[in-house]
């Protein structure tokens, strides 16, 4: 089977290229919709452009954006990810253990990391760069250049439903761009450049019905459709896209709840796909996840070209479920007061789902690895030796818990401090707190940003669970298509979560102070030297001298 599958995929790629093939360049557009437990809806747009390597294909492209190609070649980029995010992903309610939350939930503001293909003689300075701007506001001016990279922009295809007010009204939205290139190195499996553009939004659909409370106090999920969320219907594909599909996903926890409902209410209508859930458009395909009970409904936009596609969901019964969370929920807060010093605490709280992931029987023996990556600006001077780990409230001997710690101290006005701690926690841990002390530095007067009294943002810490992978396998054995989004889900993404952004207040001077100081000192000096007595002093000096004589 393992051999047959790639062969099939290759064959399908060839078939898929039948009417629109640009000698290897490909573009695809996909949209994933998923109901969330707190009556919200997740919409995840995924656009992917690929191009074969330059040495086979040359440097002129028909689909792949020229700007990205030139960027990759100018800076010899191997991998780059840039995200613009507004709002914070709610790990507790929206999940933290699936491919979307671990690779598309991003910290607020802008995050950029890149791996460069540096020549060997420059390798000492490192080939990876990370940067974050937590306070950056994200708006349409960021979306427009992002859309420009799509061959159809928002003129046709799935991107045409991107209604600006709907996006920026959302609870969370994150636009992301990821470049993977293998232009310079020889290793790697996929040669060429791959550009992945995603837009993830969490919206609250308008509830047309008066939310009828059921006797149990449960709330009915709001009914929604694409047109009620975005105000537009999908009116066709981007003709340049190789594949163009919309997916509707029901999570495993939701499916099991629905199945329970199905048992209770045996009398079900014919056109509902699941007990309690009704889709307005019949799906072209229903795919079941191989490991869990998650279900994916696929709608091919090409098949619906003759009339606008408007997928809607109706809920029959109130239903309560929760998303699968990461083993630990990470939070970060500040301790201490005053303008001199303080400490940062990162707390990890075990979630219910840890039990599900790990399993009860292994809880006592097993260990869980957690890697915390934190970048702090230079004016927050971290004392790395003060790292302390508390497990369930008890202070632990650090070498016993910390497997590895990697630090790069900050350099004033040059580089921020970087800290990466690998912890090895027993699975029975309920809470773990890592604290580290810091001194607050002083800035030069021209380094203060506007509105300095607001405080300084410390970028989110990244908490990674390297042992567990968030991947879903929808591309089953009988998969009849090659979907980039589903193959992305199938990749081994380590579970990731970002903590909150911290706001550290620093001593902020009165900016008119230097001139005040100058004026006051000068006045004092002037008083001392040239008071009206000055002349008198001189006279008295003489008088005294004469007296002495």
């Amino acid at each position: 089977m393992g051999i047959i599958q790639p062969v099939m995929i290759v064959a399908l790629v060839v078939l898929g290229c039948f009417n629109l093939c640009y000698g290897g360049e490909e573009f695809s557009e996909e949209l994933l919709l998923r109901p969330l437990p707190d009556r919200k809806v997740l919409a995840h747009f995924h656009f992917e452009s690929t191009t074969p390597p330059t040495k086979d294909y040359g440097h002129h492209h028909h689909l792949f954006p020229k700007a990205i190609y030139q960027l990759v070649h100018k800076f010899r980029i191997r991998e780059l990810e840039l995200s613009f995010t507004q709002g914070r992903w709610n790990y507790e309610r929206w999940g933290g253990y699936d491919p979307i939350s671990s690779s598309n939930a991003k910290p607020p503001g802008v995050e950029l990391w890149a791996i460069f293909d540096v020549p060997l003689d420059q390798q000492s300075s490192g080939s990876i760069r990370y940067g974050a701007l937590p306070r950056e506001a994200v708006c349409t001016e960021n979306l427009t250049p992002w859309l420009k990279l799509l061959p159809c922009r928002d003129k046709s295809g799935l991107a045409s439903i991107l209604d600006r007010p709907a996006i920026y009204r959302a609870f969370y939205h994150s636009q992301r761009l990821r470049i993977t290139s293998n232009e310079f190195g020889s290793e790697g499996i996929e040669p060429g450049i791959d550009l992945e553009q995603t837009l993830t939004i969490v919206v609250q659909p308008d509830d047309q019905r008066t939310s009828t409370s059921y006797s149990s106090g449960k709330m009915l999920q709001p009914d929604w459709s694409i047109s009620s969320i975005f105000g537009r219907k999908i009116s066709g594909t981007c003709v340049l896209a190789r594949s163009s599909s919309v997916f509707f996903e029901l999570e495993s926890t939701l499916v099991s709840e629905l199945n329970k409902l199905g048992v209770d209410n045996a009398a079900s209508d014919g056109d509902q796909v699941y007990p309690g859930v009704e889709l307005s458009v019949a799906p072209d395909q229903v795919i079941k996840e191989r490991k869990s009970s998650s279900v994916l409904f696929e709608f091919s936009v090409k098949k619906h070209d003759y009339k606008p596609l408007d997928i809607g969901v109706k809920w029959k019964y109130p239903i309560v479920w929760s998303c699968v969370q990461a083993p630990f929920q990470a939070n970060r807060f500040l301790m201490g007061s005053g303008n001199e010093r303080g400490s940062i605490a990162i707390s990890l709280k075990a979630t219910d789902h840890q039990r599900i992931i790990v399993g009860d029987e292994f809880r006592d023996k097993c260990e869980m690895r957690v890697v915390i990556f934190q970048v702090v600006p230079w004016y927050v001077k971290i004392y790395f030796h003060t790292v302390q780990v508390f497990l369930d409230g008890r202070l632990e001997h650090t070498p016993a818990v910390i497997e590895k710690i990697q630090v790069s101290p900050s350099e004033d006005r040059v580089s921020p401090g970087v800290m990466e701690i690998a912890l090895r926690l027993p699975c029975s841990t309920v809470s773990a707190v890592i604290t580290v002390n810091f001194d607050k530095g002083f800035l030069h007067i021209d380094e203060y940003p506007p509105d300095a009294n607001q405080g300084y943002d410390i970028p989110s810490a990244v908490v990674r669970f390297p042992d567990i992978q968030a991947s879903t396998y929808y591309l089953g054995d009988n998969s009849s298509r090659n979907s980039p989004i589903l193959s992305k889900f199938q990749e081994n993404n380590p579970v990731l979560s970002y903590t909150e952004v911290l706001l550290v207040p620093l001593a902020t001077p009165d900016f008119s102070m230097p001139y005040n100081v100058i004026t006051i000192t000068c006045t004092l000096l002037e008083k001392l030297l040239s008071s009206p007595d000055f002349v008198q002093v001189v006279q008295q000096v003489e008088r005294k001298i004469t007296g002495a004589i």
Partner: protein
Amino acid sequence: MDLLPSSLSPWSSFLLSRCSVIIVLMLPKVHGEPWLTLKCFAADSIHKNPNRSSINGGNRRTSQPPTTDPHQTPQTPFQSGVIADPNPDNTRSSKPGIKRLIMISTVLFSFILGLPFLLKSIEIYRSPLPFRDIELLGDRFESSPRRLPCKFQAVFLGFEGGSSGGFSDVEKLGFVILDEMRELSRNNGKCGGCDLNYTVSVTAESEAGCVTNQGSSMPSLWQCGSFSELDDRLKEDDESVDEWLDSMLGKYNGDLADGGKMYTVVVMSRDEEARIVVGKHRHAWIRGNFGEKDAVDKVANIFVKYFMNGGKEDGLVKGEFMPVGADGRIVLSFSLLNADPQHWIYNWNFERIEEVKLFPIIKVLASVANISVESQVLYHTPKSSFSYWDEKLSSFIFSTKDLPFFVNSNEWHLDTSIAAGGRSKVLQFVVYIPSAEECPLLLQLPNGEISSTNGFISPMWGGVVVWNPSDCSKNSKNEHPISHTLSSQDLQKVFEVFTGQLRQLFGLKSSNQYDWQPGISRFLGSESGFTEWELDALLRQHTCFNLISCASTLGSLSRLVQSLPRMIIMDEIGKQVMLSLQAANLAENNASLGIYEASTVSSRQARALAEDAFFHPSIMSISYYSFEHCFAIYTPFFLPVLLHVVLAAVKEWKRYKKEQAKYLAGKSKAKAE
């Protein structure tokens, strides 16, 4: 906000000047009295003794005797001295003391002496710029920009000695042609054409012999006796004649590079229809039966109009608008626009056409500019102007007056090059494929004709060509359009138009339009699209404009720097200015020697460096330490202190003069007594 650029030095100087005051005030200490006690004492005497002023006053105003208070006892020896003065009128016996005067003047002088130190310490760093050299360079180019020298050679073949200017007349012929050329090139612009002291060498060959005029300093390249060989060649086509002429005359330009390029016109007297051919190298030949005057006119015309000015027509594209970026680079950005991909999608094989059509152009223009090429295909890019259906032509028509609105900058995202952020010039070349709703789309010229190229240029921006698919009927059944590739013949045609547009952007005539030039039968074209004599003209023009632009940029920089005396100038700017001047001088030297390519390259460098210096980020930043700033910091201290010190000095000086007068009066009185 940079209040104190060199935060320490102003304060140190400030302390220095203050220290001098303290030292002066400490002077009494040498005499055994601590300054502080003196100060206290002084304060004491002010507050505790309300009559102090009168006591002091007694010192001066003796009209008011110090006897108002009977209980008062003499307090100081000084006072007692006054009382002891036997003459209570305007005289005094002792010399007035100058200690107080010295003291106060020392304080004042120490302030004045400290001033240069203060000014030195608050001085900001300015890299020394060669203002004088910049000014000289500007003056030189302002009056007469350096032009590259050219040489001209006219060869008259088969003219009978008697009928039209015999052998003895070659000298005269040379002068006549020179005069005619001067006349024609009189109203050339600043940078058009050659260095003014060009010469014309005339060679005449006939059965009687071969003579060259002595007026010109250069040797004739015409090998006497080649007439018959040329005669044989003329039976063949024009190209082979051109190559043959080049093989004989072209050696000069390869071997001896001094003195510029040599241009030749060969005039053959024959009894046949007049035919004038301008070759692709640096030669032209005229055949026919003309008189001397006629031949001279034609020769001078070819020399000036084509070889000197590159066939340019004034007013087409102004020379000042060179389509070359300030860094000497051009990015040719080719875009294929599919107005509506729902109807059809076209694609091109750009790599192939780049090799065939673009590489030769890049190669020949290498000295003018550093050219790079990029391409993209864009979709959903409608034009923004209107077109109307013409029944007679059965096509959609857009007219020249709609052209300003044709380029749809909202939907045509052409600016995707990373070069767009720099100072390189990006020239856009756009192939526009209309949608089925406006196909075929034709451009109507103002005279009502349909444009043969179906394209247009926008100076300094680039060019657009509308390419119509052969079959305009939209296949409505096919929901998913099939991708077509532009055939190589079509692409060849489009790129020929682009070459013409590029020539126009450079100020030349688009190649195929030479044919209607009056009096010229044929122009031989070059594979690269640019003939050698056109390139020479471009090089001459660009060298000249680069140098003028460099001089004016440096002049602006020097004026700016001089007008803002407190602006920081980094060393890097100084270095760039120096290098720019060096490159400009090198370009001038090369120009005077007639080395075309090298002088253009140097002039390009000079311009790029001058622009780099002018647009240096440190100059762009607005925060510089202004004099007002400096004033605001130092005034609160120096103004009140100096005011008091100066007042004290003035007062003291007055007192001293008064006392001196008293003493002198007392002395003269005593003398009289």
